């Protein structure tokens, strides 16, 4: 029953944060600076390492797919399969998981400590809305970070797919373009964008909502962090499952 209540609180927090994001007073120099710092930590710092990781992983997966497909005389489907599995599903999910693991954990701990220290109560007593001041910039920054990391790493993976399939030869370009046309239909692109945004929002909303569960009791902090991380993982998996079900079932 308690996990249901926790999910309910997370949902309520999401609505409140959305309402706060729509108010003009949320867009101040201070919140902008906070959001920029968050994007810097969540995306810029990890960009080279994460892109390299995504490139290596996708290179191995695409190489296996292409060589197996060639072995079974199905090479014409290899590129499409690689794009659908790696570019559209694997890399976005891995990006969201990575940001969740790195920034989500930091955010939930930070908010839990703030709740434990009574910083949030101080803000409220000073008549400052903690949603506008602390939460909305973090959510926006997390969504932007996930989106930026996903777009850049997917782009690199698309280039790697070409190199694995055709090598450095430019003559595979027209066939490659046809496969891109086949895979990236307008609906598919729209779904991809929606999924990226959903991943980004969830990566920030669920940890902050979980961090707010912490009380003055110091033992409540690790419980809040653990609950937040588990719910975040479940939410990411659920988004991916729903996305797959809509597309292929």
């Amino acid at each position, binding site marked *: 029953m308690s996990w249901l209540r926790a999910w309910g609180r997370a949902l309520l927090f999401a609505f409140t944060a959305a309402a706060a994001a729509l108010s003009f007073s949320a867009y101040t120099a201070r919140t902008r600076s906070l959001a*920029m710092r968050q994007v*810097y930590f969540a995306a810029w710092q990890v960009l080279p390492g994460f892109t390299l990781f995504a490139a290596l992983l996708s290179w191995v997966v695409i190489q296996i797919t292409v060589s197996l497909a060639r072995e079974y005389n199905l090479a014409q489907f290899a590129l499409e399969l690689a794009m659908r599995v790696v570019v559209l599903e694997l890399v976005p999910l891995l990006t969201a998981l990575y940001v969740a693991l790195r920034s989500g954990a930091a955010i939930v701990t930070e908010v839990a400590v703030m709740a434990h220290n009574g910083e949030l109560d101080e803000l409220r007593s000073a008549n400052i809305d903690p949603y506008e001041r602390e939460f909305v910039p973090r959510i926006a920054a997390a969504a932007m970070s996930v*989106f*930026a990391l996903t*777009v850049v790493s997917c782009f690199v993976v*698309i280039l790697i797919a070409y190199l694995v399939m055709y090598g450095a030869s430019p003559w595979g370009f027209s066939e490659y373009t046809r496969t891109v046309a086949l895979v*990236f*239909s307008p609906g598919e692109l729209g779904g991809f964008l929606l999924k990226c945004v959903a991943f980004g929002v969830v990566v920030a909303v669920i940890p902050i909502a979980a961090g707010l569960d912490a009380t003055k009791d110091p033992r409540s902090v690790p419980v809040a962090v653990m609950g937040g991380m588990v719910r975040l993982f479940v939410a990411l998996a659920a988004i991916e499952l729903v996305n797959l079900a809509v597309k292929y079932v």
Partner: protein
Amino acid sequence: MDREEYTRVPKNLQFRVGLLLGLTIMVAAGFLIYALYARGVFEATQRLTLVADNAEGVSIGMDLTFSGFPIGRVQRIALGEDGRARIEVDIPRKDARWLRNSSIFTLERGIVGGARIRAFTANLQDDPLPDGAERIVLRGDTQEEIPRMVATLRSVLENVEQVTGPGGSLQASLDNLRGLTEQFGGKEDARKLGAVLDRANALLVSLGGLSRRMDGVVAKTDRRMFGADGVVDGTQRAVDQANVILGELRESLKRVDRILADAQSVSGNAKAATQDLAQLRAEVDASLRKVSGLIDEINRKWPFKRDSEIRLP
């Protein structure tokens, strides 16, 4: 809130974050434009509708290939009013030149993978395929062929089984053969076979003599035909004489030619003479008319004599 102590923030933070977001937007927009280009949004296309009995295996986005190269893409599949599948294919204008009025379209389904739509153009000088053309697509289906092939193969195997099985015709033939060889098995039969072989040998010896005699006959014929005063020689002489006679005949014919030419000139004179006769007759006619007129004049001028009779000299 002094968390900055643990996480150092660089001075050009704004620039770096701006660069990252700018790069992201550029890549996303660039890929979006590339995807639109790949889907042929910026390309003029023409429509071709293929009508098939069964569009199973056809999917939207499938290629229409010509000589193994994709030249068009399936945009829409619909069930027509007549219950047949209508496959609408968009063909870029620059690739449409491979399709002519006489082009043939086939829909093939292999064992593995989706269906394939292929175009064949025998005559590239034919009129180009018009926009919005509608063509029947021919089907070739491996999966439909296999059961038919298996059924045929089964009947063939049944026939083979009937032939080779116990009581089959092959078995009966082999039994007959075995009976025959068994009949040759006794010593009496072996002796008979020996006698047959001896007689065959004797026959071959006499045939050898016959062929020697035939050789002699051929040699004699050769002499008679091609030797001195042989048949061929006599024939040669006869041919020479015939040549001489033909030469004389040719001379005679030349003379006849000359006589005929004379006769022709004579007949030409006769023709001229007949033309003169016609002129003479016309002159006589004119003279007679003049005499008649003279008589009428005399009759008018001669008051006493009422007798109109005139005696011509």
